[in-house]
């Protein structure tokens, strides 16, 4: 489904702040793969997801989605293949617009937008149904402004929006990091449920090693802009936090440290 080949990304090239964020990253995901991505601060996890999403172009290498070469495709164009949820709950939704308007924007991802109604009454019924499955009490608040929702509610809504159109690839970048532990758990479980239910190919960045182990069928660890560890199948299932810490010690660069929040939780 996703084919990343020899990807390089350097920020601030030719200045004192030059920073190699991705160094020869190659990665291949099959249909329905659910990969968790861990790594220290600045390891390049977000950069990898951003390159796949087209936020900025890579310096070299290629990205293929379902055998479509998207390496140079503009962000808004490849958005039709992708669902994304960001760390910041404010980033995934329009706070000044209401729940149904946000869902309706997502419902038309990759479609032509014209002068028909932005939200139809048929959709409203569908949205109410979908929101009910989240069990957050949002089904009766279709016309509430999203800005009034809690962070967890916003993330759950963003998740729903990201998966509404069955994306070829779902990109989750620490989408529960800004939430309190209980809400984070709830949003993670909703994510896991939707991903399994729809069989979505997914990359999920997390700082929590336990979550990285608990969810998904494959785990990669990034360090200094490359993939240092890649485990899947049985090996992944048997993985423990201690194993991961050992692997991390072995893989990490000189200046990298294990962030506390990576072990805790």
């Amino acid at each position, binding site marked *: 489904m996703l084919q990343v080949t020899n990807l390089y990304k350097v920020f601030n090239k030719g200045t004192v702040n030059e920073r190699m964020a991705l160094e020869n990253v190659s990665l291949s995901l099959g249909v329905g793969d659910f990969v968790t991505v861990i790594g220290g601060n600045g390891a390049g996890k977000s950069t990898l997801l951003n390159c796949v999403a087209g936020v900025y172009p890579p310096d070299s290498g290629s990205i293929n989605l379902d055998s479509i070469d998207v390496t140079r495709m503009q962000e808004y164009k490849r958005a039709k293949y992708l669902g994304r949820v960001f760390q910041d709950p404010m980033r995934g939704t329009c706070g000044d617009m209401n729940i149904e308007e946000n869902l309706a924007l997502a419902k038309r991802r990759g479609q032509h937008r014209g002068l*028909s*109604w932005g939200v139809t009454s048929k959709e409203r019924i569908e949205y109410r149904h979908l929101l009910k499955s989240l069990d957050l009490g949002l089904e009766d608040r279709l016309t509430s402004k999203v800005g009034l929702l809690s962070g967890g509610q916003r993330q759950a809504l963003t998740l729903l929006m990201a998966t509404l159109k069955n994306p070829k690839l779902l990109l989750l970048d620490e989408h529960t990091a800004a939430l309190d532990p209980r809400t984070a758990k709830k949003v993670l479980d909703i994510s896991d449920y939707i991903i399994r239910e729809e069989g979505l190919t997914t990359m999920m960045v997390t700082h929590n090693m336990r979550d990285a182990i608990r969810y998904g069928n494959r785990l990669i660890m990034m360090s200094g802009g490359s993939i240092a560890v890649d485990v899947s199948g049985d090996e992944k299932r048997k993985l423990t936090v201690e194993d991961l810490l050992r692997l991390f010690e072995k893989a990490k660069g000189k200046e990298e440290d294990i962030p506390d929040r990576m072990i805790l939780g």
Partner: protein
Amino acid sequence: MQEIIIGAISLGLLWAVMTIGVYITYSVLGMADMTAEGSITLGAAVAAKMISSGRSPIYGLLLAITCGMAAGLCNGILHTKFKIPSLLSGILTMTALFSINLRVMGRANISLLRMPTIFTPVSDMFNLDKGSSVIVVGVLVCAGIIALLYWFFGTEIGSAIRATGNNADMVRAQGINTDTTIILGMMLSNGLIAMSGAMIGQSQNYADLQMGTGAIVIGLASLFIGEVLFGKRSYFIRLTSMVFGAIIYRIIIASVLRLGMPADDLKLFTAITVIMALSLPNIKKFAQGKRRSLSGGQ
């Protein structure tokens, strides 16, 4: 006094169209578009030129709207494709329009005295004086624009434009080209502003190269007055509040002039109004912070 109020209402109704245009860029898209100063004059110039060369006023009005939209298109391209910050791109477009407006008119002003305007058919049909027919046309035009925009912002494209001003990252993630939505918003805004200019010119019987100077600040002042009076409620109410804001702004101006403020100080007065509206929330926050830190220190 009654005469002043009627004059203020008729002028306010025409400026309301401009205020709604400013609302689209300032409140919906979230940018201060200086193009407004050029496109309001452009509208007046194009309509006056057409009328004075014998074309029908309606034709002049439609052409003015088209030219305003073209100005918005240019500014939108400068901002989105050439990545010029919106404030600067607006200043550039406005400056360029100054020369274009002079070329359109051929001189610094065109008189429309004793020529047909869009208001003439109404005053002929109902046997009204000019001021009243401006009010009739103004009310109809404002109602039409509010209805049209209320519909438009409820459509798929309209929702996308609203969302762009709110969270462009999210909009791109939904597969929408935000360059296009920004350009569309700017075209819509400047089309309305040029339309307003065309009507203002015809109501005062002349088009003048300088009439746009300070227009954006007048638009913002009217917008803030509307917001203060009606609050930030539904789209329908917000659009309507722009009309009342523009009218009340004119009534305030007429009143302070009557109270003896020299006309030369008008722009200073309007600027101060806008400064107060923009800084009031901060002053309030500052005052509250001060109070808190004072009580905290005890």
